[in-house]
């Protein structure tokens, strides 16, 4: 097996920020997102020559699966903290931080599948069919999960957003 060449480096440099941002939205945590993105690219590295089609799609699917596995295996590496704010998003301060923080927290309060649907549909801008394919579910499930998630997000984020706009 031959190690990937420059094309792999170009691919990583061109897609890593986008993939990391998706990972942060999916996990609510920058450090965890970096861990996952690095693992995704390491897997892509190993399979670089075998990947057919767009490697971005492969990487996005791998990331979604890794996030799901991370959640599913959390009895071994769980995601609920003992200490206050231990697992809160760790974004650098900037204007409007509270609003962004609130949205990230609200995303993390969604069940994982609903969170994934929201991020893939509304951040990655995938179609319902593409989202269903990545999540291995029906288009109907994508629709219903998105509907439920949007309802919860409205309830949990809008008061703060309104306050922030005053």
């Amino acid at each position, binding site marked *: 097996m031959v190690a990937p060449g420059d094309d792999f480096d170009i691919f990583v440099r061109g897609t*890593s920020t986008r993939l990391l941002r998706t990972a942060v939205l999916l996990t609510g945590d920058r450090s965890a997102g970096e861990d996952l993105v690095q693992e995704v690219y390491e897997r892509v590295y190993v399979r670089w020559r075998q990947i057919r089609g767009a490697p971005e799609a492969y990487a996005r699917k791998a990331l979604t699966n890794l996030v799901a596995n991370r959640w*599913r295996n959390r*009895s071994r590496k769980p995601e609920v903290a003992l200490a206050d704010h231990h697992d809160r998003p760790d974004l650098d301060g900037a204007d409007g931080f509270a609003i962004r923080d609130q949205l990230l927290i609200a995303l993390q309060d969604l069940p994982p599948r609903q969170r994934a649907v929201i991020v893939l549909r509304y951040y990655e801008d995938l179609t319902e069919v593409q989202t269903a394919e990545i999540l291995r579910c029906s288009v109907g499930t994508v629709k219903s999960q998105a509907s*439920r998630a949007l309802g919860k997000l409205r309830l949990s984020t809008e008061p703060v957003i309104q306050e922030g706009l005053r």
Partner: protein
Amino acid sequence: MSDIDLQHRMTTSVETVDAPSDLVDRVRQGGARRLRRRRFIAAAAVALSAVVVADVATAGPSVMGGRDDTTAAAVPATDDPYRFLLNQPTRGDLANDQIYLDQVVSTWDESHEKSLNQDRGIFDNLRGNPHVAWAGRTPGGRAAIVVQQSYLRKHDNLQIAKGLYTLIGFIGEDADGHSTLIADSYPAPGAGLITGFVTGSRQRALVMLDTGQKVGWSSKRIYADDGSSHLDYAPLKFTDGISVVPLRAGTDVRTIMVSVLPAGKFTHLFVAGTNWPDTSTRESRLWPTAASWPLGPGAEEMRNSAADLFGKTLDDVTAQYPLLAIDSLWHAYGKTANGSRLVVGEFAMDTDATRVYAVLQSPTGKTEVVPGGIPDPSAPLPVTIRLPNDQGWVVARRGARLSSRVGDGAWSTPRENAALVAENPKTEAKVEVAGSVQIVQLR
């Protein structure tokens, strides 16, 4: 909030996040290591493994790049949740059993190489001596909790602010009575903490650390006749900083849940040794591919809403939402004789078996869940649910042609995959699959 608003807000939320500049180098390093590992395995170089391990053991510290840290200032991290265990004397009824305490420390010391966390580098810069925070007898044998400080730093697969953190090890006994590590953990950013473990081979016990919160445990989810489900949490009593719960023979440790009380949606605490399966490769659904099965005239208008009605109604009757919810990929839907909307599907929670349900919504909007139990995939009709108020039966089998009749009457026109069948003591269903026919009495 419109779709565009949400997209804008998510984009804004992460607009300051940029990939680290050294990512390519780190990925190449990690990827190359993975390739080497694959080649090594492919070559089945068992005979060489001892040599390789010896090389790594000798060259380890420099390979890991940890030498600069051995002299780093030992400033305890401010967010070290296990640290309180370092500062207390050993507790538990074996606290004065020095022979056992020495065994625990040896087990801890010898466990690092095989640890799931070994390649995160958390054992590269251990500081001080291991400290047994608790050691005691349990129905599952002797058990202990050991802690040790480690200077953690950014590693290939560990993103953490440099600092002195406390690692924790949960020690139990194997079938031969030898001490064995059940799990180790560290305060990973973005992750919670393991605060207990299940130990024992024949008899078992749940051992939970006192974290100052009111905590309860549940052995399994309870499914009621009305389709609802819940977890009954029994409060834990802590003595010497620990709660020990004997587990009855036959207890499925995978279904044990621990929660801060009162239990809510995100109050779970995490327990090692419960052997959760790797669900990423496990498919527990009855029918794991997407399908929509209209049950007759009038069903089509429900096509886009059926899954939502099914999922939302089951959510509403599910107390203490599970860690893992496995939604139905198929739905059968239609209208019953009295005009109620009907959706049938499956739903599984955590490690429990999948269950089938019928959801009814009356013309007034009132919903009702009718549980169909755990389906038997090998049965002629894996889904057979009797609907209330003489609304008939709903039956389903993927890939089958289904028809019904009452007594000696004529068979109805066959339907694919699922059918709504009239209520009558003499009703029977015909199931045709790949040329074979089976008759099922619906009683």
